[in-house]
């Protein structure tokens, strides 16, 4: 069932786009507020601002003070969360249908009335630095950060979403507040409601809570920096105490709005099995069991695990292939196996059945990842923010229209040596570094 079935899509006079999708299978509603702001809208000195703003938006607003915000959704049997990514920031509640207005009111408050009290900003600073340090405990996170930073020279996709620690230590309350107001204008947001609700009532509630919110006078500055073409392979080497060697191979890749995205998505599915397009739920970066990557890296005994994924981003991001090695002596063998596997798909015959299998997997995966109102609402909002829903819904048709030769052409264009950055994590034993 396409997501756009019965979808109501309209815009309030203040520019807020609203997507309503009634479905009555469970007595629940899922409400999502999406903002077109992420780490790519940050600059040196304010890296991590979007993510920090997200944290501050759980700390009380003018009309819902801190102590009320605690438990406000839980009292409706609800689950709430939020995340910040490179292109967007989002907040969600899935709760009993009786709680619809509570969720709508909370998101309206968050859109323009968050307090950002200085004491709360400082207390959250340590929480976020603790989160960053927790991430650093994981060598895979550390390597990802280093590899991405090496792959991008100009485009702000090079910032880690959580920010650099120096910026987190230095940013002021006013830096954050300005980032918030500038980007949380209704005309920079999409509100999504999916579930068991009456459309007329929902529209009235939305008008009541969001109608009065004024636009921020100046539009956010668009990100105009384009990453210049890469002219040669780059390497990022990371050494630290750890358990296993890790390899990340990243190629600059087309964004979701580029027509090359779809042939590369098919190529990715041929190489490693489909990852899907829902980064919030069900996204699978691990290689499928019958995929070529699995056979060449895992069945061969070279790696303990391996995977690949193409992120659906607004601007060109990266296509990443990763592997967990058993021994660091295997780095050259694993790297070569990856390159050879890519070459084989491009230059040697690929059975028709393999292409068909890949399409079935992709079709199943896309069905799985929009199961339930929470996932449906996520997919609607995610793609409405960076692209459009029709384009998302056309993914299967577009991928079906891609021929094997089309996928190979995309691979030849993007998956070439000069366009890649290779990151390696070399685990050190504790004795050496002490």
């Amino acid at each position, binding site marked *: 069932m396409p997501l756009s079935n019965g979808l109501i899509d309209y815009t309030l006079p203040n520019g807020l786009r609203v997507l309503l999708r009634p479905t009555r299978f469970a007595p629940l509603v899922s409400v999502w507020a999406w903002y077109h702001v992420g780490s790519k809208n940050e600059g040196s000195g304010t890296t991590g601002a979007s993510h920090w703003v997200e944290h501050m938006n759980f700390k009380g607003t003018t009309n819902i003070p801190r102590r009320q915000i605690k*438990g406000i959704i839980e009292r409706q049997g609800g689950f709430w969360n939020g995340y910040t990514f490179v292109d967007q920031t989002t907040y969600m509640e899935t709760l009993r249908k009786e709680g619809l207005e509570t969720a709508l009111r909370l998101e309206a408050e968050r859109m323009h009335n968050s307090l950002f009290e200085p004491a709360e900003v400082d*207390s959250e600073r340590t929480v976020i630095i603790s989160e960053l340090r927790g991430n650093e405990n994981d060598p895979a996170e550390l390597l990802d950060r280093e590899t991405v930073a090496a792959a991008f020279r100009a485009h702000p996709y090079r910032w880690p979403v959580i920010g650099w620690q120096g910026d987190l230590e230095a940013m002021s309350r006013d830096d954050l507040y300005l980032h918030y107001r500038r980007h949380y204008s209704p005309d920079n947001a999409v509100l999504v409601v999916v579930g068991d609700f009456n459309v007329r009532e929902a529209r009235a509630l939305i008008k009541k809570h969001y109608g009065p919110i004024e636009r921020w006078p100046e539009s956010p500055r668009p990100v105009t920096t384009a990453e210049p073409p890469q002219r040669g392979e780059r390497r990022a080497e990371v050494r630290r105490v750890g358990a*296993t060697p890790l390899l990340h191979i990243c190629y600059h890749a087309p964004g979701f709005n580029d027509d090359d995205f779809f042939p590369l998505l098919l190529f990715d599915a041929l190489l490693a099995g489909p990852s899907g397009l829902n980064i919030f739920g069900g996204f699978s970066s691990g290689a499928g*069991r019958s995929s070529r990557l699995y056979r060449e890296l895992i069945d061969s005994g070279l790696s*303990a695990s391996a995977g690949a994924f193409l992120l659906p981003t607004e601007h060109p991001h990266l296509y990443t292939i990763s592997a967990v090695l058993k021994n660091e002596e295997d780095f050259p063998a694993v790297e070569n196996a990856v390159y050879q596997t890519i070459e084989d798909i491009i230059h040697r015959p690929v059975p028709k*059945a393999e292409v068909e*299998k890949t399409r079935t997997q992709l079709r199943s995966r896309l*069905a799985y990842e929009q199961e*339930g109102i929470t996932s449906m609402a996520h997919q609607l909002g995610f793609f409405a923010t960076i692209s459009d829903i029709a384009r998302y819904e056309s993914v299967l048709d577009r991928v079906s229209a891609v021929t094997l030769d089309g996928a190979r052409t995309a691979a030849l264009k993007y998956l070439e040596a000069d366009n890649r950055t290779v990151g390696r994590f070399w685990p050190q034993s504790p004795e050496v570094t002490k």
Partner: protein
Amino acid sequence: MKADVLHATLRNGMRLLARRNPANPTVSIQLAFAAGAVNDPPSKSGLAGFAKSLLTKGTAKHDTAWIAEKIDSLGLEIGFASGRHTLGLSARVLVENLRPALALIREVIAEPQPPADELEKMRGRIVTAIRRRLDDPATVAGETLAAMIYGPRHPYGREPQGTLKSIAAVELEDIQAFYEAALAPGAAIVVIVGDIEPNEIEVLVAETLGRWRGGGEFKLEPPKDVSLPAEPRRKFVAMAEKTQSDVALGYQGIRRLDPDYHALQVGNTVLGRLSLGGRVGQRVRDREGMAYYAYTGFDAGIGAGPFVFRAGVAPQNVERAVEIALDEMRRARDKGITAKEIEDAVLYLGGGIARQVETNGGMASTLLSQEIFGLGDDYYLRYESILRALKRRDINDALARHLHPDNYCLAVAGPQGK
């Protein structure tokens, strides 16, 4: 409201539960065998997990490449999990491919025959996974705590995934013996939920899983209880070059069928769960800004799993976080929790069930767990009224009985503290 679940026992003894959900064009299959890591011989701990990892690596008829090809060409997503007491299979597939998916599942669970080279490859992968776990302070803290609470001879004190040494000791005969002892149709419960009529499911299951001949019985035995430590016991595991410390504090808690289970669920929600970690999270995370995560929980299963407090904090904040957790445990034990807090927790837990059963996978795993514990099909519908019927005194008495801030074990893993 009714749960509308079809129950059937196949001729080979396997129990089937089926339910229609028209909301999604997918089907979830969840299957559990009464076979878990608790029965692993101590010198070969991790055997059950090792064996489950090899379930798609070869059968009497087909090799791993054929099986992998088949799984992927059906768009079947399938995973196996080895718990303390059960070996579980979780799969999803589009409705149109349910029948061939069930036939394939029958083959991999009824006739597993992984060859020796697949065993060696898997051993390598497990060893790497264990090395990575040993590099993760949160895992190390949790495993150290379990060993302290239960001791090395108790099945809950051992790491279910095994150790480098125990995994090295597993041989192909052990795997085969495990399959023979553990995988039998009568020792399995299968639950199927999706956009298909239960009667149709029953026919498909009878024609596929039903063709598996064998006996077996679905029976789970709780392990022995252990006693609380007379006084606090502490252990620190130094991990070089880590930036954050992980704290795990706890002691043996309760079984799922303990009469205090519901009261403690409400009580613990207030103590360490509601709104990012309840009273404990409020102080550790919000008021003092010390941690990215902090929570408490009772791991109530077939046997009495641990009650734990977990947090990730900067090394210099470990003592303070522990102090706060103990202080809140004491306060909840001595003074109880308020009627307002109970109301909030009940609303939260009650509403959570509706979300839990919204997806096919969520409904299937809920039905499976209800069946394993004998709670009845309509348990998830009755759940909120069960909680509502609890009196404040029951909840506070249960907290007083089960919070032991002076008899805990504490494991900390992280960089050398200051």
